[in-house]
């Protein structure tokens, strides 16, 4: 955490120039200039006292070592100097000055920022007078990397974006590819997609509610949230072998059918959730501390939601029943019976209640998926077209998941053409006709979009993901400015951003 403090040497109404020097392990230096509103248009001298002195010399410790003292430096520069340091010393220095303005960097390593989000707060006492979110610390070039991989490999990259809700990433990408191919996936694959998406929605909402509760001190909500999530992740592991980074949904269908014990394990998960989901209402809904921290906090009404492009639970908590699953259905959502949950308070508590109710609606859909899966055992889960379907009929053998023995026998023993086909599909991949599409799904956080451009080759020409968290973080100043500093964590948690998706 680094702090900018005002120097007593500054004239009260003179031009004020702030230089924020953030000192981290990487010695990254961020410089921000800011001029007060009343400042005269006098040009501010930004030159350092000694041109040869490096910027690092402004770091408090370094200046002190030089026997100069920070006050002297700031007086000379007419600037605010910021650095990290011992909090008690910072507070003592601030007390001497007697003014209430603090600039605080929250993050990027702050535990309440859901990853690596940096919030630059300007505080008047405990009131937030300005807040600016800074992102990009988890940027991993996923969109660029996908341009160098085949369409089938794209699923592996997409799943790593929003790692709390990976199934939505995979589905939106695969739907976009299938739209360009005009490909229809088998009904059982659609059911499996809906199943994993809705289970993932519950898991993601559990993380949102759990970590959001933890940040206001309700640690039990987090521990029980992760307990239920664990059941869902165990099911995913049984289904496709991984707890995250699944790459389960592939263009043309899904990678593998339910295992033999899949339906019974799904039944266990459903029963477990039925038993334990009511606990969240019992713990939180009428809890006076919970309500006191969340009610009326981080309000964003419908007008603001529209202006800022907010979607998902924050929009529905403002009372607008917009849900792409019903309004622009995909994966056969029109065949499922569920309600769109809304709330009328447009605050953090409303978003919590919307998420909580949505878990029940998702559970309803999961139960309908169970029935559909039960009645469609044995039907294909990958499109019956050797041009697009991943070859090899993945199965689980004694040594783990892999190509089925029958397939290996065929390509190695009897059919050279099948071997070539397998080889070509795996190395070169299939070609997707040129064009561009935009596909959107309702992820647990809001509208997740995929803009996919193909030039006619076997790799995406351009993929862009519109992550809901990216859009929602724009709304942080609208949520927090004028509020209390303690409400910042509540506001950010109520938006439920996952920085892997925000930064991609």
């Amino acid at each position, binding site marked *: 955490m680094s702090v900018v403090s005002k120097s007593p040497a500054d004239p009260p109404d003179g031009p004020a120039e702030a230089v924020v020097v953030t000192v981290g392990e990487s010695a990254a230096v961020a410089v921000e200039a800011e001029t007060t509103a009343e400042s005269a248009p006098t040009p501010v001298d930004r030159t350092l006292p000694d041109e040869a002195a490096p910027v690092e010399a402004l770091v408090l410790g370094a200046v002190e070592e030089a026997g100069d003292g920070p006050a002297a430096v700031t007086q000379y520069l007419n600037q605010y100097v910021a650095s990290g340091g011992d909090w008690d010393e910072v507070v003592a220095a601030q007390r001497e000055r007697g003014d209430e303005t603090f600039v605080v960097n929250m993050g990027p390593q702050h535990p309440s920022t859901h990853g690596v989000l940096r919030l630059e707060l300007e505080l008047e006492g405990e009131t937030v007078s300005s807040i600016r979110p800074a992102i990009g610390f988890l940027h991993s070039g996923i969109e*660029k990397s996908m341009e160098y991989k085949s369409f089938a490999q794209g699923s592996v990259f997409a799943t790593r974006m929003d790692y709390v809700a990976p199934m939505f990433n995979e589905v939106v990408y695969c739907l976009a590819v299938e739209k360009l191919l005009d490909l229809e996936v088998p009904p059982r694959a659609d059911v499996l997609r809906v199943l994993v998406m809705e289970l993932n929605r519950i898991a993601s909402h559990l993380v949102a509610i759990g970590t959001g509760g933890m940040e206001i001190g309700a640690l039990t909500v987090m521990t029980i949230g992760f307990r239920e999530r664990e059941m869902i992740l165990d099911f995913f592991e049984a289904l496709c072998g991984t707890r995250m980074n699944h790459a389960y949904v592939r263009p043309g269908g899904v990678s593998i059918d339910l295992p033999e014990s899949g339906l019974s394990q799904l039944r266990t998960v459903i029963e477990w959730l039925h038993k334990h989901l009511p606990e969240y209402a019992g713990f939180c809904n009428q809890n006076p501390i919970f309500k006191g921290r969340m009610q009326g906090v981080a309000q964003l009404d419908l007008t603001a939601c529209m202006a800022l492009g907010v979607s998902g639970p924050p929009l529905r908590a403002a009372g607008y029943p917009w849900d792409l699953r019903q309004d622009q259905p995909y994966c056969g959502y029109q065949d499922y019976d569920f309600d769109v949950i809304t709330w009328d308070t447009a605050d953090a508590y409303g978003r919590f209640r919307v998420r909580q109710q949505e878990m029940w609606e998702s559970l309803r859909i999961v139960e309908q998926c169970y029935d559909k899966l039960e009645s469609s055992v044995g039907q294909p889960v990958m499109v019956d077209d050797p041009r697009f379907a991943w070859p090899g009929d993945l199965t689980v053998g004694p040594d783990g998941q892999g190509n089925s023995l029958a397939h290996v026998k065929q390509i190695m023993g009897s059919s050279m053409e099948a071997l070539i086909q397998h080889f070509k599909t795996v190395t070169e991949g299939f*070609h997707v006709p040129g064009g561009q599409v935009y596909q959107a799904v309702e992820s647990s956080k809001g509208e997740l979009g995929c803009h996919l451009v193909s030039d006619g*080759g076997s790799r995406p020409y351009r993929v862009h993901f519109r992550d809901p968290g990216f859009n929602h973080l724009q709304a942080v100043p609208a949520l927090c400015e004028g509020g209390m500093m303690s409400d910042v964590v509540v506001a950010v948690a109520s938006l439920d951003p996952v920085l892997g998706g925000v930064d991609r």
Partner: protein
Amino acid sequence: MTTTTSDAITAPADDQSLAVSQGMWGAGPGDVSGFGGQRHPVWRQQPTPRPYGGWFDAAVDRLAELVEGLDPDGASLAHGELTIPVPKELLLAVARAARDDPALRFEVCVSVSGVHYPDDPGRELRSVYHLLSITHNRRLRLEVAAGQDDPKIPSVTAVYPMADWHERETWDMFGIEYTGHPGLTRILMPDDWAGHPQRKDYPLGGVPIEFKGAQAPPPDQRRSY
């Protein structure tokens, strides 16, 4: 696998395609080795002849009526999605009309993304706006082109405030300068980064991967399809 015939393979860039993409692998006629030297024409967006069907005709006509100079026949319809190419000087008028007209009402600019077509001289950079009408439950796409030498496109933040960060990202990744943006700074890359990484000509900067007795080249120099 590939449907291109040998004639199509050798065809140069024309109105239908931007260029010919060349790769090392592919099944040419009679080739089973996989080293056929696969090539394919690079897709170029074409206007779709009228009528488009559905609500599209009325929407395009209304937009052309409200914005003088907008070509009513330039739109392209594919996969049930309409893309309207908009000259950059008309972008703000089109966006405002699309947002405010009761028959259009595209209230939300869901996303802005850039695309780089280095083979399209004078129109290399594209800024693509995905609009959503919650009132009518429709989607529309606007595509604005800018040359790499003069990558300036007016910012739509005055019409769609939610496009703020999206335009910053597209500036960061593609170097499209959105004039009139309130604070066009880098958002994903560090402030002092040089270049715009999502452009096709941006070097990947990979290093060879060493194996015992062999080396794999960086990704942009490996075999390509």
